[in-house]
């Protein structure tokens, strides 16, 4: 029997050797200026939100320059766990991607230390600021502005004078959504109550659903969510409520979430407060290509440059007009939205 096992071991090792031996040496490649890759923050590139929007931006950048997904082109690395951040970044560095994006503030530590070890690679971090690194561009969004408009839309739509906010994890970034939303609601009608709830997670649709169900039962008829994957549950709760004859609305986040609100017989997505992570990724990749990568700088996107915005999904035209007029006021500076 020992012999059999030994033979089996030998066979396995041979297969292993063949695997190593055959195929071209894919680990080495020449770096070019025209390559960029991103590392996700835990959600996949199909999370219908943050990471997906970044990936779509990178894809469209790659396609517009006739690049292919893969080495010397554009690519992604997906993190299943926080411990994957650094290995993922380093794998992309080794594969000679010229610009590497960390999608989400959770990666700032990893981006910072990778930038220190690899001074010749461009790094960018979304939603956070990495200080004192000349090869890191920090990208932030004035999401309080788009959230303000979401607040206006909610205040114009509510019939019960009660609206809700569902956040993911309480952090500086999500707080800007909450603050902007509250200010937008108050600007229209200071008497409207805003109920703020946090799910404690960006990936728990079930928690989102139970929170939203409770809020709808409490007669809140518009909910703005800034909760990534948790927000999927908010949509489910709204659709269930609508199917039972009680029409409620959800305001989506990051991407146009109209498709998420569709059910047989209607749609619950009122509007979407978009944050164009994809545009930022595309811009920076283009700048890196022209040797103008804003390393060491903080790049801010706002309503004016279309880095954030609001999309009308199912608002009636008079509501949309009010929203647009507030949008104009923010753009020309007559309304200032406080991020806190």
């Amino acid at each position, binding site marked *: *029997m020992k012999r059999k096992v030994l033979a089996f*071991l030998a066979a396995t090792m041979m297969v292993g050797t063949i695997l190593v031996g*055959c195929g071209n040496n894919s680990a080495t490649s020449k770096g070019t200026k025209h390559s960029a890759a991103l590392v996700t923050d835990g959600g996949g590139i199909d999370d219908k939100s943050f990471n997906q929007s970044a990936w779509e931006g990178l894809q469209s950048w790659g396609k517009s320059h006739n690049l292919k997904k893969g080495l010397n082109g554009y690519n992604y690395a997906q993190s299943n766990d926080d411990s*994957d951040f650094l290995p993922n970044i380093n794998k992309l560095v080794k594969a000679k991607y010229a610009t590497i994006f960390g999608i989400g503030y959770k990666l700032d530590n990893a981006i910072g230390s990778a930038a220190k070890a690899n001074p010749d690679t461009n790094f960018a971090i979304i939603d956070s600021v990495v200080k004192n690194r000349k090869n890191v561009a920090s990208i932030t969004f004035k999401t309080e502005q788009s959230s303000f408009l979401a607040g206006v839309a909610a205040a114009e739509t509510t019939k019960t004078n009660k609206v809700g906010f569902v956040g993911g*994890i309480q952090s500086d970034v999500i707080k800007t959504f909450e603050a902007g939303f509250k200010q937008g609601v108050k600007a229209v009608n200071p008497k409207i109550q805003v109920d703020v709830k946090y799910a404690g997670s960006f990936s*728990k649709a079930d928690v989102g659903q139970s929170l939203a169900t409770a809020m709808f039962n409490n007669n809140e008829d518009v909910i703005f969510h800034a909760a990534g994957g948790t927000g999927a549950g908010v949509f489910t709760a709204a659709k269930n409520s609508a199917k039972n004859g009680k029409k409620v609305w959800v305001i989506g986040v990051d991407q146009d979430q109209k498709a998420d609100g569709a059910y047989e017989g209607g749609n619950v997505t009122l509007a979407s407060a978009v944050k164009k992570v994809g545009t930022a990724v595309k811009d920076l990749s283009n700048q890196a290509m022209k040797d103008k990568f804003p390393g060491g700088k903080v790049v801010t996107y706002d309503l004016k440059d279309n880095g954030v915005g609001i999309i009308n999904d199912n608002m009636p035209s008079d509501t949309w007009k009010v929203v647009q007029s507030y949008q104009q006021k923010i753009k020309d500076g007559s309304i200032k939205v406080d991020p806190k």
Partner: protein
Amino acid sequence: MLSKSFKGISNALISIFAGFIVGAIVMLSFGYDPLQNYQNLLVGAFGDIYSIGETLRNMISLILTALGFAVASKAGFFNIGGPGQYLVGWFSTIAFTLNFSHLPGFLLITGGLLCGAVAGGIWSMIAGVLRAYFGTSEVITTIMLNYIALYFVNFAVKNWLAAKGSDSSPNIVRKASLNTNFLQEITHNSTFNWGFFIALIVVALIWFYFNKTRSGFETKTVGLNESASKYAGVNVKRTIVIAMLISGLLAGLGGAIDGLGNFQNISVSNNLPSVGFNGMAVALLAAENPIGIVFSALLFSALQIGGLSISVYSNTPSEIVDIVIAAIIFFVSIKYVFELLLKKRWFAKKRVSEKEGADK
């Protein structure tokens, strides 16, 4: 004894092989090249000194959570609490290191690791005590304790450790890190750290515990038959509590080492750390043998770290690795089928002699 472990090894190898075949079939049916991908995986895990460093580092917590699961399992308990114990250990270590950062490095590290291990141990012992004295199912209690750990740690990190508005603690001081400059230099900036050697020492200790100590022997007898060992004079309740304590100590130590060696801080997490569950899979593949766990952890770690390379070097989604891992576990769990085949065909004679001689 010898042929028994050989049977275990051949079972494991067949399962691994079958898992890779399943992965290859899936890749082929979606039009991806399995040979190229497996090669990328291998290169990604062992291709250079950096990758080897990452693969070995990833092994540490897998080994420790797997050992933790194995110890409880030998005593007949299904400790699903690994993720929670790991998390509590990680948190306690970071909290200790941040609060006592004025201590010299050596004391800071030993104190931190001890703190993490003990916290994990106590967390697990709660389930042990409930089981021993009230007969509560440890499966239920450990699952529930996982969630208590997750939300408690999130609350504690947010309110006690993190700066306002942030959701992760500050980094620990450099002298408390297990990932020293020397190791970074020789592994080209990987996160490989001294914890690896601690894990190997712990493997030896657990092997010694089961094979050479009275308490370890008692643990195994309780696992085989509770009533019989009670009749033979074993203090069953105490043994249960000790087994669960050791189990939690190990998982907690895993979290502690990851905290000091890999993360250097702790953040609010969305979900329970997956390493706690992967540790169970590692232990199952190794048939709960401490030495086997080292190799099984190496395989899992290589799959995970190498798997990250798959989507970087080809168009194949890296999730394919999860399919391979799941398939391996599936084949391990249906090993009874293999055993039956093996028994009938090849090992008929050996089985007889083993039964006569080996029941030590």
